[in-house]
């Protein structure tokens, strides 16, 4: 029992230690809202046990904690625990409000979400389609920006409203809205959010799709409309008095149909990125980013590999964020990186992109690698270069002799001067002995010609086999013909009962030669049974058989009469003529 308990404890602790990395992120149910209209803020803690609901506050916003929920998921055999904290946010006046990064305590560690921005607009501002409370359904496109830069990701929302009495689902299932326009790309759609709202005293379900829009070139980006198809059940007028069949129909009173809910259009002015001040290492990243870095372990020797992680955090188009570049190139050799991106919101605009390097110190130093990263900040409308904080390290040992290959450093083929992680290659030049082109294809040159040789040998073997077969056939025939001639000669000489046996054999040989059954000669007893013989011939052959059997097997010499030679010849000739 004790050992079982220990085993259980071990299993539980093993499960606990194998939990994946804890992640914390925050999301708003809407990016824009109206004055007095509530928006839900959800903080999600994955694989961690938070101490309690974190404190959230922002200037100009009324934020109230509304509850906590937990979800358990089996993720490929591993249990994932997600805790959600919900808050209701209301603002009484218009403006753009920033919710600063929220600190969440999970066990001994503290995690931080990304900053969030909520725009509170006048009811009609930013909306492309005036709400139509007289309709059972309508769509709305919300683009909170009027201008953006080429490559900048602009968050958008597509809202589809349905009267509370209307049942609906996207059709076909899994289909996402289609935006009609040119000159832009959109990021992926996360799962839509479904919520209830009240417009002009009337309750509506609203399905909100969030995405981001990236302008591909400068100019006016015009979105003509966006639409999504739905399958809906609308309330229908009833007939009176009701038909009895209709009463039994569960869908009676509802009209089911496939509809296309369309939003209005919008125009966003896309501005080109300025040429002036563009850093050389600018990779197209637009947004607000910061760098963090760490080195593990922090002490070592020259030439010994260490792990270096530099993270780009912030808000922007993370698909264009490339690896930062190294500032202090003389001190460190970088190998890698491997890249991982963790989204901190549904759309992927708020994220952490982690670049993991193996680094090798080239000389003794107390400063870790310093990385720099350039991006365009659309709020300041200028290029910004940030550098990572330099980690304190302690590297000892003599400096590496060389960090770049040179053509003179040739050696024996395959031999390299081995400085750890160096790019040293064997730079020896080899002389071509011939310029005969080598074949890069899978089937070697002349492959099919090479098959002619064995094919000819095989043909020769088959020819030999055929010849042997034919020769074998001919030799049997020849042997029988010789025997037939010999038997005829004997028959001409013999008057004794032996002539009966000779005549029998002659008929058998003649049959074999005619029917090419050379290897297995049929006895006369079976030949007589053949159906295609005339009755006269069959009688003669029967007579021949009977006389032969009498002569040889009766045991009495007086009971048979030896037929004359001419009689036997006549029988054989009759056989030959009939055959």
């Amino acid at each position, binding site marked *: 029992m004790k050992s079982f308990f220990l085993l259980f404890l071990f299993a539980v602790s093993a499960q606990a230690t194998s939990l994946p990395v804890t992640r914390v992120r925050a999301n708003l149910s809407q990016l824009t809202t109206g004055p007095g209209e509530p928006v839900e803020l959800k903080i999600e803690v994955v694989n961690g046990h938070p101490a309690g609901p974190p404190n959230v506050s922002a200037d100009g916003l009324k934020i109230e904690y509304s509850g906590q929920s937990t979800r358990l998921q089996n993720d490929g055999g591993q249990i994932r625990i997600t805790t959600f904290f919900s808050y209701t946010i209301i603002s009484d006046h218009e403006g753009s409000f920033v919710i600063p990064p929220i600190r969440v305590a999970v066990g001994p560690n503290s995690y931080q979400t990304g900053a969030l921005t909520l725009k509170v607009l006048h009811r009609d501002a930013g909306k492309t389609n005036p709400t139509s409370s007289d309709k059972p359904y309508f769509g709305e496109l919300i683009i909170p920006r009027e201008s953006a830069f080429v490559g900048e990701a602009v968050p958008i929302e597509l809202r589809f409203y349905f009267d509370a009495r209307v049942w609906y689902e996207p059709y076909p299932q899994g289909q996402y809205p289609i935006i009609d326009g040119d000159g832009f*790309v*959109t*990021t*992926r759609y996360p799962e839509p959010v479904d919520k209830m709202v009240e417009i002009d005293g009337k309750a509506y379900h609203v399905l909100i799709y969030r995405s981001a829009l*990236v302008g591909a070139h400068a100019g006016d980006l015009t979105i003509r409309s966006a639409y999504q198809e739905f399958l809906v059940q609308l309330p229908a007028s009833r007939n009176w008095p009701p038909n009895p069949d209709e009463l039994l129909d569960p869908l009676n009173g509802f009209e089911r149909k496939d509809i296309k809910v369309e939003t209005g259009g919008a125009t966003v002015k896309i501005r080109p990125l300025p040429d002036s001040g563009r850093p050389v290492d600018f990779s197209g990243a637009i947004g607000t980013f910061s760098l963090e870095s760490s080195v593990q372990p922090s002490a070592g020797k020259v030439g010994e590999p260490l792990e270096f992680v530099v993270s780009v955090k912030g808000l922007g188009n993370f*698909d*264009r964020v*490339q*690896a930062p570049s190294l500032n202090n190139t003389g001190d460190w*050799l970088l*190998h*890698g*990186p*491997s*890249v*991982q*991106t963790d989204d901190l919101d549904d759309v992927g605009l708020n994220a952490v992109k982690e670049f993991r*390097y*193996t680094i090798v110190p080239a000389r003794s130093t107390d400063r870790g690698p310093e990385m720099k990263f350039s991006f365009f900040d659309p709020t300041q409308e200028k290029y910004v270069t940030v550098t990572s904080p330099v980690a304190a390290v302690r590297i000892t040992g003599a400096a590496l002799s060389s960090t770049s*290959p040179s*053509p003179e450093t040739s050696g024996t*083929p*395959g*031999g*390299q001067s081995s400085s750890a*992680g*160096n*790019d*040293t*290659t*064997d*730079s*020896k*030049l*080899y*002389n*071509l002995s*011939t*310029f005969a*082109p*080598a*074949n*890069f*294809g*899978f*089937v*070697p040159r002349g*492959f099919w010609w090479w*098959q002619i040789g*064995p094919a000819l*040998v*095989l043909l020769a*073997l*088959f020819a*030999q*086999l055929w010849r*042997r077969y034919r020769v074998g056939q001919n030799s049997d025939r020849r042997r029988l013909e010789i025997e037939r001639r010999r038997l005829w000669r004997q028959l001409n000489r013999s008057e004794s009962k032996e002539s009966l046996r000779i005549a029998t054999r002659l008929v058998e040989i003649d049959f074999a030669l005619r029917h090419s059954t050379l290897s297995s000669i049929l006895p006369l007893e079976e030949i007589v049974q053949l159906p295609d013989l005339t009755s006269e011939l069959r009688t003669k052959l029967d007579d021949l058989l009977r006389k032969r059997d009498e002569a040889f097997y009766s045991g009495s010499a007086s009971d048979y009469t030896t037929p004359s030679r001419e009689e036997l010849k006549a029988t054989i000739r009759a056989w030959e003529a009939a055959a």
Partner: protein
Amino acid sequence: LFKSFPFSLLASRSSLLSIAFTTLIWSVCAVSAADPAETWNQANQAYQQRNYTRADALYAQLLSEGMYSRELFFNLANTYVQRGDKGQAILNYQRALVLDPQFAPAKANLHSLVQSVGELEPESIRFALGYYSQFFLWGTVVSGWLAILGLAWLALRSESNLARLVLFVAIPLFLVTGALLAWIGPGNRSNKLAFTIRAPIDIRFGPGRSARVIRTLGLGVPLRLLSVRGEWSLCEIEDGASGWVPTETVDTIVPR
């Protein structure tokens, strides 16, 4: 005598002119065609003088003439190393190894280079065997022929021990090499095999920069090129995942 066929032709003035003109054109062409050995020496000389741009151009000229050899790819890869283009260097070392899988200098340099870019992962058995795809092709064909000829010989001479011995060796060899050939196919000589020559490369669900990233690849990662659609190529990586990458970031092992 001069009225007979060949002499009458020569006697004609226009014929003489046309023959002279043809000879002239022929000799001009012969002179203008670069001697591959000369180009090779010039390329090596440029490399020694650290004029890597010229060396690269001269090696590329030999390549465009189809003068493939392991030494050419090796030297070209060295040039790319000097120019800092590690992606092309890895690709050309791989090309040298496809032509000669036992070429030790290329193996050593490739190992060193791949280690330096942090992509040193043990290659899969299938990829390692892929260098020997031609060997398996020949093994299957030769053992197949031996088995057929052995059977035919046995039909002729049923008592032949030599035929039995040949069959005893050839049939298992045919089965083994045939199975390996079916598994690896053209191997590393496949014109669909490509390597990443830029890094990092995001492999995406769709042909566009806004499409979701499936994975990020480093330099010298082998891919199977499924389709090339202009600026984007659909490819499959070793673990079976497939997605789109910019066409200019990958290059095929078979020179294009």
